[in-house]
């Protein structure tokens, strides 16, 4: 089968994204994820199944099946802007590693057209899948949410051992790896917790940058539209002062920290 004919399931394509990898990028959001992070701002991404969202009376279908060729056609529309800005394609989700055939084909096809690639990933996948995907990615933006596996599991439904192993595996492969930490009050927003993540990350070969992404509640409406409870409704976006304190903690390691993507 041609790479362009490989099928997959996405729920959005967003052009002119400027905070998820270098330059001006097009993000393709794949459907399905193994984690169920309580703060997730794209809850409609979690299930692989095509869903309906009831936007206060207006029904919206989330998810559609597409071929790699169809997606790449859309991605190519902004190639002039990628060339000028050093941007390209970013796979996000959901978790693109949950659809390894589709994700690998998208990335390879993008490279075949000379398009730079990036992936936003939890890296919660088998080593075999990681090894298939990573060679086709120019920038890996990988989340490390917590060092304590139990707490990780309590807030995301998954332990973190596999994730941390994959972080090492990706780093050792020589990939351009950036670690990202969603800073969620009540979960990982203490200096101690951030320090633990930063120290782990600074032990990874090749890793130079760590991004602290302050929690926001922009996704909370979507839980209601999906008929779900938003369990973090009582927390607020961390203050600028707090984020800067945490940034200092990161910068105490050998890493270059930054706030936001």
């Amino acid at each position, binding site marked *: 089968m041609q790479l362009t004919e490989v099928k997959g399931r996405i729920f959005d394509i967003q*052009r*002119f994204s400027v905070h998820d990898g270098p330059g001006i990028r097009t993000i393709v959001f794949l459907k399905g994820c193994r984690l169920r992070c309580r703060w997730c701002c794209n809850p409609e991404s979690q299930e692989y199944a095509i869903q309906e969202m009831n936007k206060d009376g207006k029904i919206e279908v989330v998810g559609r099946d597409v071929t790699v060729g169809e997606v790449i056609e859309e991605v190519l529309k902004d190639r002039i802007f990628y060339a*000028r800005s050093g941007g390209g394609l970013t796979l996000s989700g959901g978790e693109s590693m949950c659809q390894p055939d589709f994700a690998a084909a998208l990335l390879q096809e993008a490279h075949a057209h000379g398009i730079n690639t990036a992936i936003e990933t939890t890296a919660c996948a088998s080593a075999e899948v990681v090894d298939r995907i990573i060679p086709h990615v120019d920038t890996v933006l990988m989340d490390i949410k917590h060092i304590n596996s139990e707490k990780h599991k309590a807030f995301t439904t998954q332990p973190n051992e596999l994730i941390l192993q994959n972080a090492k595996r990706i780093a050792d492969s020589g990939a351009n790896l950036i670690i990202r930490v969603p800073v969620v009050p009540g979960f990982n927003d203490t200096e101690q917790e951030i320090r633990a993540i930063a120290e782990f990350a600074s032990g990874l070969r090749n890793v130079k940058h760590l991004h602290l992404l302050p929690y926001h509640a922009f996704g909370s409406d979507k839980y209601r539209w999906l008929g779900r409870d938003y369990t973090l409704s009582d927390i607020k976006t961390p203050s600028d002062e707090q984020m800067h304190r945490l940034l200092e903690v990161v910068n105490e390691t050998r890493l270059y920290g930054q706030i936001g993507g």
Partner: protein
Amino acid sequence: MAWNFKGNLPKTDRITRLVDGLFAGMPQIEADRAVLLTESYKQTEGEPIVARRAKAFAHILRHIPITIRPDELIVGSSTKQPRSCQTFPEFSYEWLEAELDTVSTRSADPFTISEETKAALRSVHPYWKGKTTSERATAYMAPEALVAIDHNIFTPGNYFYNGVGHVTVDYGKVLKIGFKGVRAEAEAALAKCSVGDGDYVRRNQFLNAVILSCDAVCEYAARYAELARKMAQSEVNVTRRLELEQIARNCDRVPANGATSFYEACQSFWFVQQLIQMESSGHSISPGRFDQYMFPYYEADIKSGKLTMEAAQELIDCVWIKLNDLNKCRDAASAEGFAGYSMFQNLICGGQDANGLDATNDLSFMCIEASMHVHLPQPSLSVRVWNGSPHEFLIKAAELTRTGIGLPAYYNDEVIIPQLLAHGETMEEARDYNIIGCVEPQSPHKTEGWHDSAFFNMCRPLELVFTSGVDNGVQVGPQTPPVEYLTTFEEFFTAYKQQMEYLIALMVNADNAIDVAHAELCPLPLESCLVDDCIANGKPVQEGGARYNYTGPQGFGIANVADALWVLKKLVFEQKKYTLADFRDAMRDNYGKDMDSAMAQKLTATVAKQAAAQGATIGEAEIKAIYREIAVNKCSESQKIRYATMLEEIAKLDKFGNDLHEVDAMAREAAYTYTRPLTQYTNPRGGVYQAGLYPVSANVPLGAQTGATPDGRLAYTPVADGVSPAAGRDVNGPTAAANSVARLDHFIASNGTLYNMKFHPSALKGRAGLDNFVSLVRGYFDQKGSHMQFNVVSRETLLDAQAHPENYKSLVVRVAGYSALFTTLSKSLQDDIINRTEQGGF
């Protein structure tokens, strides 16, 4: 690297005080010029017109009050009060006479006016009856053209009411040889004339008028030298006394002689800029490539150690303040179309030099810095972009964009240079181009471009297709077949083209009539002596003395026409869900919707006034009743439901601005219906017509004269702005919209296209934000778009500014081809800006 500028330079306290001084009071109308002009005209009746013009100009400069404002380093004010204006009855006065009592309270660009000034103007206005360019132009226009104007198909109001302006004169020549040198050029040309030459009479008259005008300018500067010396004598503050003495020495030398320092060059530049506007009321007198012609003086002073970069920056800042000191009062209707007290003095930096090398220098950066310091709408700062533009320079420009001031506008050398070459200009001239007014390219001091000579509303001919050319019972357009007989899309489109071609010809007729009136009644010897090759040709620009002559009226509403054609193609001719007659009815009934509230209020006020004048008692209840009668749609419920479904069907269809090839191709064709027919026409100065695609801010007031259109746009609401997608219809983000807009043919619209994009500041956050912004501009320009400008403000900010204007007096937004103070704009224009799609990038 050709520049030393790094980071930024400090803003001095003087600049803060000067800015505060500008806004201490309301702009005023002053009568001195009108009174002096009339005095002189009365004394010169029967003399050749060009001599009368020069004598009147000299008389004005000899007697008009002069003033040096506190803290000024650069002097020369046309009015006693800052930001105020003189009037120009030789072009038109009737509107002002009629609006004398309302001009201070109108919504767009009010001016205060004292009773004394009113009396002075009332005493001179009767003299001008039958003598103005507007009356002469009306007499020359074809009756059909007058009908078309009356029915709001197009408006040539700009040059109909005012002087032409829209020129870049040879500032560099004055800096180099002074007006004494220019006078010598005229004398030399005169010496070459022989009394027996066939054109001796006119040549002789014109060159003598030039000599008289040059002398008048020198005398005017001498008045300032004397005033500065007098003020210095009584000045107690030593620092200020020294400043005034320096000002006196500057005015002794320039602009009569060549400048010997950067400071003198700034002063000399300013006198030219100020007095060109004193000679005629034209706006868009554009300084052009200031960073190029000022550079030799800057470089010499920096090299010799006479000047620091900081001191140079303060002088540039002072020039920027003077550019905001000039003002212009337009008639109430035009004021809405050019809202924001704008003078459109376009000043451009960067780009290539005549030899094709990058021309960026320290002054290019310092011009951007000056706009950051003064944070005012003038000059209309522009930046030239080409493949060789230094990234640092564009980042500096992006930093200014990020402040939300709506400046600079970005222009693409890679489109504009070929446009000028296609008109037969030389490679060197084309590479040296600058921008006039909003977006109009030309090669400086060689061109009489008549840019901006009319607004043509492309939606109105579309309406006329549905009525076979009849508007309000009058046959305005050609009698195209009734829509029942248009059975294919091609037939419909042909009918639209017929309407367009006929009405475009009428617009050309109107413009040419005005052109002739200006040549006959208002030649401008001062402006002409600084435009090549008027002295050599022995005639003013108004008679075709310039090397290049164009007329550039602009069409607007492309996005509405494109979307409308697409809707009709799909719903009527392909899906056959509706007939053209259904659309005719829907448009007539405004899709069953109530009238636009601003429009309904306006009409209510008119009706109430008429009723009151006839003796009816008009209270609050009566006004409410009239409003209801006007505003509320009278369709039956079943009709309304049918129309609502129709609007839903329309909304579902693809729209221009979303990177969809077929719709974008329709937009390209729609634009051609204006740009192509226009290029076949010539003007009385021996030049050709060229199309612009931009509305300044006229898309709002002219939209208020446009009924509902087949794209679902309701009656009297704004039409699309420039070549931008219709407000709120581009939903795939800035790159998709830019790709769509780039698919129009920008090369044929050589009078300029205008693409307006609004950005939330978060899209430009951090260095990465600036880099990505520059990449967006470059990506659009790679695809041969010619112009781009940005509003960087949040919707919340604008809404709050609307609710609390007092807190946002200095909030600058980019309206169309220029920046204006948001709170000075009319409510409807404010709404239009708020409703434009916010292109967030976060």
